[in-house]
């Protein structure tokens, strides 16, 4: 039972290593997918909203601490993303949400939100075009992340979702 609490946190470290060493190699014009968000959405949907919110907070804190980004910015973004992903943790509909295209759409939503919050927090000033910012800094990384999530979820064994 306790495994559900520490397994995602243990998994976070190898995923972060891949995120900061291997993933930059597949960057397209400086845009990279966010594996941490995929991990967060996956475990939030398997549990519940409070679990997702707290897990997002922990992931964000560790990410900020270990990568040198503004301490607190990823915490804020990933906490919110975990909370939103929690709306899709309904036990009756879980099987349906874990179908590859639905999962990719949920990842897209959370990833866009995550990217927009981080960018909004750090780069908005009076001259910023908000629509362009949401598209460039939010949607593009979000699409890339959701495509990667599609690949992961297609190859994931279906019975372990239950």
């Amino acid at each position, binding site marked *: 039972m306790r495994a559900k609490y520490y397994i995602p946190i243990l998994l976070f470290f190898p995923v972060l290593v891949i995120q*900061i060493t291997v993933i930059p190699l597949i960057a397209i014009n400086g845009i*990279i997918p966010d594996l941490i968000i995929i991990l967060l959405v996956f475990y939030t949907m398997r549990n519940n909203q409070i679990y997702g919110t707290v897990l997002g907070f922990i992931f964000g804190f560790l990410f900020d601490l270990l990568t040198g980004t503004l301490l607190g910015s990823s915490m*804020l973004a990933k906490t919110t993303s975990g909370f939103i992903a929690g709306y899709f943790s309904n036990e009756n509909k879980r099987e349906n949400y874990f179908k590859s295209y639905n999962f990719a759409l949920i990842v897209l939503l959370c990833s866009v939100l995550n990217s927009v919050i981080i960018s909004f927090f750090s780069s908005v000033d009076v001259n910023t075009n908000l629509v362009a910012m949401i598209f*460039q800094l939010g949607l593009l990384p979000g699409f890339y992340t959701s495509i990667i999530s599609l690949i992961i979820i297609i190859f994931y064994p279906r019975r372990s979702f239950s």
Partner: protein
Amino acid sequence: MVRFFLRIWENFKEYIILVILLITSLFTISFNKSPAVRNVRATAFGSFAVVTSLVSDLTSIAKIKSENRRLREINAELMMQVNRLREFGIQNAELKNLLVLKDSSGYPLIPASVVSKSISASQSTITLNAGKNEGVRPGMPVINDLGLIGIVFNTSDDFSIVRTLKNIDVKIAVKDERTRIDGIMKWNGDELVIINVPKTYDVQPGDRIITSEISSIIPVPLPVGIATGITKVSTGIFNEVRVRPFVDFNRVEHVFILKLVESVEKNNLELNFYNRK
């Protein structure tokens, strides 16, 4: 009363937890510059970078062959350039002696490799495998053969975190090499821009942008990028100059840290000047 709060907690616990965690996050952001937080971060990323450096070594093996070829070509080109520059160097030294100017070149370089990259739209950082033990200190500029990459932000014993120019927290005094016009360059989340350039100043697309001597962080001229255009702000008296950096930050692998920290003597002098009643 207790029952009332319990009922509120039961009905809104998801939202209460969310609000508490968001407030904690906002609170944490305000503590970023605290020395205690910096020390904790240095210890944390120093330990983690040991693992990432191992993985980074493995992933870089695949690229060594192509990079070796590229470096041979650059080496041949540089050899020819060095021959030309050697003559200019002798002339330069003689002329400087004549003018009694202080030599600003010859700062020691600390070689390092990138062990991990955190690419984001606004807060890009890289981790290097050189730290306090090699003499790296926060504030030192990081360069490669193409130009300036960023500034050392934090160091552990064997590793250091560098904020690249694509980080909104890095603001550097730069100048147009042709017209000698100074300005402050920053990353706006989308591109590098020199802000608050008066509309009457002569800055043209294609001008080389280098670091300015007036910078308190990098008081030596280092190549930064090329001016690509001017964003004409309709109101006010200032324009923004867009800059394309020489360095492709996504491809950076081997760098040098310029062993140069801001002069305490100069700082004290300037502070004394400003503090004078």
